């Protein structure tokens, strides 16, 4: 095969830097973990350390999420392919589970440690 050209290498470097830079989105998250659920244009937030079971209704039926032992998974969903259920348990910030057919997106997000003592303000705000 021909050796990669100069343009090839430039394109590769641009693409690689965008990929690597995107990982910095995950930093500065060291406080309590939250479970953010987006469904039908609304967003819910749950504490990952509190066990609970929640059901969301989407275009193809209901999707049930279970939080247990600091992990979260989709317990069951009315979608055809069941990929969301098969994705299993997640527990780290940045990990996510989605049910595309039923429009439910579950992601674990870290919160920034309350270094400046502003957490109370944010909650009341």
């Amino acid at each position, binding site marked *: *095969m*021909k050796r*990669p*050209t*100069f*343009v*090839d*290498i*430039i*394109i*590769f470097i*641009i*693409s*690689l830097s*965008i*990929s690597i830079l*995107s*990982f910095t*989105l*995950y930093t500065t998250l060291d406080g309590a973990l939250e479970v*953010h659920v*987006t469904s039908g*244009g609304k*967003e819910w937030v749950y504490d990952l350390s509190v066990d609970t079971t929640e059901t969301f209704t989407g275009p193809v039926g209901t999707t049930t999420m279970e939080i247990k032992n600091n992990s979260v998974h989709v317990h069951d969903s009315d979608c055809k392919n069941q*990929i969301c259920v098969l*994705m299993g348990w997640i527990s780290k910030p*940045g990990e*996510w589970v*989605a049910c*595309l*057919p039923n*429009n439910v*997106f579950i*992601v674990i*997000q870290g919160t920034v440690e309350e270094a400046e003592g502003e957490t109370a303000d944010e909650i009341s705000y």
Partner: protein
Amino acid sequence: MKQQTKSHTEARLELVALLAACALFLSTIEYMIPKPVPFMRLGLANLALIISLGILSDKEYFILLLLKVIGQALITGSLFSYVILFSLAGSLSSALVMLIVYKVFKEKVSCVGISIAGALFSTLAQLTVSRFILFGEGTYVIAPPFLLSGLVSAVILGVFAQMFIERSRWYQTVSGAQA
């Protein structure tokens, strides 16, 4: 004379159909491969598009693109769901970028560069669709693994496509006979 023109048109039509069939065949193969994480795709069908850059005219190239999107939607059963928006956005933007890169750099770029540029814009377009239609602000979380896996598969596909166009006699024949 008239007879000749017709047979030429037919030959071009056959060429587009052959490449589209090839794209759909690859889509089917990809559909059968289990994915570790959903929505992460190899983009095997893009091989046909990359290879066709040196064979088809612009118009034929976009017909091939359209056939690929519709065919893929039929195979995966997502033709009338909003999943096709992802497919359409990704395919369209990557096809446009690949065509532009190919036209601008010509001999100075190989299939590897074309493939990487296409994959990057496909991912970016899909993330944008996801940001505005599905997941809202949370989309940034899925961006990094998407971008990285897209890059890896694009390099592999690009190398494969480059090897193919250098060695294939079929390719030499049809690209030489370009209208």
